[in-house]
């Protein structure tokens, strides 16, 4: 395997597609869920929050194992034949990231949403306008939640190794490749790939920082 040959570029492309797709799906589920959880009042809410917090810290290999058991040939969804596919890796990552995004959004909404809602009432905003305002006002926190989720997706190796199988040209990602190269003793290539992974993470953070420049303006006032 040469550095930056077609195979490596394919691995980088697959990793980016997988992490972006799983983060997008998790954001679509996790953001409204976190906002709803803050607003909702039902018996067992504390238990749901506790379960979500536990899932936020769930070990990737355990999540990978659960997805494996569900999609294995004799598993409840084995007939879908998703095991060792790109889709299975995305499903595992969504299960890992969604609780993180939901949890961060829930905490942010708990701190600020009530005040924003109160303000919206005093301005005569409709329910739709209020919902839009809450999302807009919490956009920094929501953004942070998504970036954190993306970071988890990029760094994750245990779950996708189990459900993806690290199959060459098929389900091999940057983290699983690094793990493989280390096992083979090709440390130099593993390090280079690790640096590329770090550069991608840095690029994401620079983009995030640029988009969050509004927050910095707070310090410029006096």
């Amino acid at each position, binding site marked *: 395997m040469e550095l930056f040959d077609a195979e490596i570029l394919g691995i980088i492309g697959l990793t980016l597609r997988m992490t972006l797709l799983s983060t997008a799906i998790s954001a679509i589920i996790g953001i409204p869920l976190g906002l709803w959880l803050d607003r909702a009042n039902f018996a067992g809410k504390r238990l749901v929050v506790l379960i979500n917090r536990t899932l936020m810290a769930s070990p990737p290999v355990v999540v990978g194992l659960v997805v494996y058991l569900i999609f294995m040939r004799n598993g409840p969804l084995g007939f879908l034949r998703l095991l060792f596919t790109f889709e299975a890796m995305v499903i595992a990552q969504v299960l890992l990231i969604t609780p993180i995004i939901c949890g961060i959004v829930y905490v942010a909404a708990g701190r600020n949403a009530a*005040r*924003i809602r*109160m*303000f919206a*009432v*005093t*301005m*005569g*905003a*409709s329910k739709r*306008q209020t919902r839009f*305002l809450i999302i*807009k*006002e919490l*956009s*920094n926190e929501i953004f942070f939640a998504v970036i954190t989720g993306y970071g988890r997706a990029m760094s994750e190796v245990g779950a996708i190794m189990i459900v993806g199988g690290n199959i060459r040209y098929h389900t091999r990602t940057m983290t699983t490749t690094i793990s493989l190269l280390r096992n083979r003793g090709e440390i130099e290539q593993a390090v280079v790939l690790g640096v590329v992974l770090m550069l991608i993470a840095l690029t994401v953070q620079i983009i995030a920082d640029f988009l969050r420049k*509004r*927050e910095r*303006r*707070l*310090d*410029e*006032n*006096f």
Partner: protein
Amino acid sequence: MRISNLQKNFDRFSLHIERLQLPRGEICGIIGANGCGKTTLMKLMAGILPPDTGQIDTEGLAPQDITMVLRKPYLMHDTVIRNLTYPLKLRGIKPDVELVEYYLELAGLQDDREIYAPGLSSGQQQKLALIRAMIFSPKLVLIDEAFSNLDMESTAAFEWLILERQRTETATYLICAHQLSHIQRLCGYVFFMHDGRIEAEGPTDEMLLRPKSQRLQKYLQYASLKEGAADGIPDS
């Protein structure tokens, strides 16, 4: 606005207003010690809190016609100008440039329009919240201690603005303030609250100069002493 048998219960506090009528087009004041329920009553009137029981008859006013300026106002994570024009945007009204300039100047924020609003000083934030509540010409304005952080010049400017708007637009105001001088200068009618209830009400002069309720007399005594001390007037 007319209220009857309004009740709101919390764990350690309950508000019960048997009857309250805000005279339309008047500037009314609401006074009382901390924790007597002034803010809760205002929040109920503004529709922020739902009542447990009782009636709040807005007498034809839509929720969009009522606004409240809170003691700690919420400013959006945006610029001064976007905060100021937000209620107009909600109503699909194109901001009148002259009006916007007038309000910015009144609040002393004409050079700060592109500043990040939550970064303003607390006094500037209160001024922005006050002009934001007035720019869309609501019919009922509830002001909860929103003058507390203003300097004397700004206080005078806003008192003038309220009197002017009430005269030209016949809006109704309910102002909660601990400084009796505000109440005396602005309000024609005053409510005195004690322990979640309206203890006394009447025209301002009658309430402040010839109070009948003993609790009100005591409250006025303390409030005058405090204000006198704050203004540098000797207590005796």
